[in-house]
C-alpha cells in the first residue's frame, strides 16, 4: 500500500510537469534550434548561389555543354546562351558573370563579371581548358596509342596517416564540452523546477491533507522520483533525437559528406558520453535535485518559489565554471580533489575519465562517495521534510529552519 502511494505521488508529479508547455519547449528547443540553423544555412546557401552563377557562351555547343557540367547545377546558368542575354542577366544581378569560350588551335576563355572568379572556379576552368586542349593537341599530333598512353601517365600522391592522436584530442575536447554543458543545463533546469514545484506547495493546506494520507518521506521521494522521470524522459528524447539526426545525416545529400568525414570523431564522442560518465551525470542530477527540494522546502512562502532554486543553481554554476581552466589539464591536483567532492564530482570525474587520468579504483571511490552522500541527504531531508513543509513562519531563514526541524 505504502509503495502504491509513493508511485501515485511520482506519477502525479511527473504527469503534471510533463504535460506543461514549459517542459515541451525545454525538450524540443534543441531540435528546433538545430533545424532552424540548418534551415537558415540551406536557405542562405541557396539564395547565394542564384547571384553567384556563371553563364557560358560559345559557338561550340559540345564545348559549352562540357564546361557547364563542370560548373554543376548550382554554379551554372545554362538558360543564358548569348552574350546579349548574359550582359542583361549580369546587369540585373541574376548571374555573377559569363565566360565566352572560343575554339581554334588554341582554346580561349574570356570571363566578364561583376567580381573576379573565385580561385576554385578559376582552377576548375583552367583544368577544364587544359584537359580539352590536351585532347585537341593529341588528336592533331596523330600519335600512336602507346604514345598517347605514355603522355597520359599521371604522378601518384599517397597519404598514410599512422596515428589519430589529433582526432582523439578533438574528440576528448568535444566530449568534455558536450558533457559539461549537458550536466549544467540539466542541473540548472531541474534544480529550478524541483525547488519551484516544492516551494509552491510550502505552507499550503493541501500539504496537511496529503500528510494526513501518506508519510512526508514517501511524498518527498515521490516528488524526487517524479522529477527524475522527467529527466529520464528528456534524456531518452535526446538519445532518440540524436540517433535520428545521425541516421538522417547519413542519408541527406547536404550532410552526407560531413558525416562521412567526421563519423570516426562522432563515434569517439558518443563512446565517451555513453560510459560511466552518464552514471555520474545521472547521480549528480539526483543529488542536486534533492538539494533543490530542500531549498524549496525552506522558502518562507509559496510566493518565493521562483527564488527557491537559487542556492542549488549557483552551486551548479560554480562547479561548471570551475572546470573551465582545467579542460586541457585534467590531471591537476585541484581536479583530482574535486573529482571526489559531491556536487563537484559530477563535472570533474567525467573530465578525468574522458582524458584517461582516473583509474577504475578512483572512479569507483568517487561514485561511492557520491552515492553515500545522496542516500544520506535523501534520508535526512525526507525525515525533516514534513516539519519544513507545514511550518508557515515568516521569520529569518535560520528561524524557519530551526522551527521546521523542531516540529
Amino acid at each position, binding site marked *: *500500500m505504502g509503495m502504491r*502511494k509513493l508511485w*501515485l505521488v511520482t506519477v502525479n508529479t511527473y504527469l503534471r510537469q510533463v504535460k506543461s508547455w514549459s517542459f515541451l519547449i525545454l525538450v524540443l528547443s534543441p531540435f528546433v534550434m538545430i533545424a532552424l540553423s540548418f534551415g537558415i544555412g540551406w536557405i542562405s546557401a541557396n539564395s547565394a548561389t542564384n547571384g553567384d552563377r556563371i553563364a557560358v557562351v560559345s559557338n561550340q555547343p559540345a564545348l559549352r555543354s562540357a564546361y557547364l557540367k563542370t560548373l554543376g547545377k548550382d554554379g551554372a546558368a545554362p538558360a543564358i546562351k548569348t552574350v546579349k542575354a548574359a550582359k542583361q542577366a549580369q546587369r540585373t544581378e541574376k548571374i555573377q558573370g559569363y565566360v565566352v569560350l572560343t575554339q581554334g588551335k588554341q582554346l580561349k576563355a574570356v570571363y566578364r563579371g561583376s567580381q573576379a572568379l573565385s580561385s576554385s572556379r578559376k582552377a576548375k576552368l583552367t583544368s577544364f581548358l587544359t584537359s580539352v586542349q590536351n585532347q585537341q593537341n593529341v588528336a592533331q599530333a596523330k600519335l600512336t596509342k602507346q604514345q598517347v598512353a605514355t603522355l597520359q601517365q599521371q604522378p601518384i600522391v599517397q597519404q598514410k596517416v599512422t596515428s589519430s592522436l589529433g582526432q582523439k584530442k578533438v574528440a576528448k575536447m568535444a566530449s568534455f564540452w558536450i558533457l559539461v554543458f549537458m550536466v549544467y543545463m540539466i542541473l540548472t533546469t531541474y534544480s529550478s523546477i524541483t525547488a519551484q514545484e516544492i516551494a509552491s506547495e510550502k505552507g499550503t493546506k493541501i500539504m*496537511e*491533507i*496529503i500528510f*494526513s*494520507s*501518506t508519510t512526508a518521506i514517501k511524498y518527498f521521494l515521490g516528488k524526487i522520483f517524479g522529477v527524475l522521470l522527467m529527466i529520464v524522459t528528456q534524456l531518452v528524447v535526446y538519445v532518440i533525437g540524436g540517433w535520428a539526426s545521425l541516421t538522417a545525416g547519413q542519408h541527406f545529400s547536404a550532410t552526407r559528406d560531413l558525416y562521412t568525414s567526421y563519423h570516426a570523431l562522432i563515434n569517439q564522442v558518443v563512446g565517451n558520453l555513453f560510459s560511466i560518465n552518464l552514471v555520474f551525470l545521472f547521480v549528480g542530477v539526483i543529488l542536486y535535485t534533492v538539494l533543490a527540494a530542500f531549498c524549496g522546502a525552506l522558502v518562507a512562502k509559496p510566493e518565493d518559489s521562483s527564488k527557491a532554486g537559487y542556492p542549488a543553481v549557483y552551486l551548479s554554476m560554480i562547479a561548471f565554471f570551475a572546470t573551465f581552466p582545467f579542460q586541457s589539464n585534467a590531471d591537476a591536483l585541484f581536479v583530482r580533489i574535486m573529482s571526489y567532492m559531491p556536487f563537484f564530482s559530477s563535472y570533474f570525474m567525467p573530465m578525468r575519465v574522458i582524458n584517461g587520468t582516473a583509474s577504475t579504483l578512483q572512479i569507483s571511490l568517487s561514485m561511492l562517495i557520491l552515492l553515500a552522500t545522496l542516500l544520506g541527504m535523501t534520508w535526512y531531508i525526507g525525515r525533516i521534510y514534513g516539519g519544513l513543509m*507545514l511550518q508557515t513562519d515568516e521569520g529569518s531563514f535560520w528561524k524557519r529552519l530551526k522551527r521546521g526541524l523542531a516540529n
Partner: protein
Amino acid sequence: MLKIEHLAKHFGDLEALHDINFQVADGEIMGLIGQNGAGKSTTFHSILNFLKYEGTISWNDQDINESVFDQIGYLPEERSLMPKLTVEQQILYLAQLKGQPARKIKGGIDEWLQRFEVKGKRTDKIRALSKGNQQKIQLICTLIHRPSLIILDEPFSGLDPVNVDLLEQAILNAKAQGAAIIFSSHDMGNVEALCDELVMLRHGNMVLHGEIRAIREQFGKNEIFVTTDWSQEALLQLEHVIEAKQLSRHRFMLRVDDPAAGQPIFQELSGGHYIEEFSQQPPTLDEIFRLKAGDGHA
C-alpha cells in the same frame, strides 16, 4: 474511539497546549471551541501527527501513523486544492492517497457531486470553480473514502446558509454510519445543533468539557424569556433581576442573579393568570463561550 490523554505541546517557551484529555467515541460528534489561538488547530495537528507532542493520542488503541491514515478524513482550516487539476482528477488523486481504488471512486463521484449540488462540474478545472464550490469539492475529498475518524477544522467558515445545511447533513450522515467526528467552529449555533459533547480551550487549557446540555445546566437557569405588557423599567425593579433586555415590543430577556428567583418573578408577572410566554433557561452556548473562552466579558 479517539483517545487523547495528557496532551501538551510547546513551541519554544510558548505552551500551546496543556494537559488536554478527551475522547470521541464512534458515532459521536465532538465540538472543539475556543478563540483564535486557543490551540484548536494545534490539537488537530497533534492528532494527525504533524507535530511532536507530549502525552498520548490513539485511535482504536493504535498510535496514529500511516497504518490508520486511510481511516481519517481531514478538512484543514483554510481551503486549498490543486488549481490545475479537474474536479475528477483532484478527487481521484486524494482518494487514491487514502488507499481507494480508482474505479470505485470514479463510479461514485457523480453521486457525491449531486449530493453537494455541484453536479456537472466533474470536468471543470478547480481554478475555474467559485470559492463556495471549491469548498464543496474539498468536503467531498474529505468524506468520499468514508472515513471512520473525521477531523474538520472550521468546516462552516465562509459557507452560506444553504451550504451549511448541506454540510450539517453530511456530518450527521457520517455520524449515523458510525464515524467519530471532531470539528472546530466559531459558530456556537452549529456546535449546539450537531455536537454531543464539546471541549472548550482557552490559551491551550481545557476550560470546559462535557455534554452540551450538562454544561449549560451547570451555569444555572439564570435567563428568563418573557412576553409581557410590563415596561423595561418596571421589570428592572423586580427583585433579583440584574438586566432586562428588550428583544421585541413586548418580549424581554431577564437575567437574574439567583435561578431560584424564577418562581416569584413568574407569580409577580402572571398575577396567577395566563401568561403568553415565560421560559427560564440556562445561558446559551454563545454566552458561555463569551464568558469562558474570552476574558469573561459577556
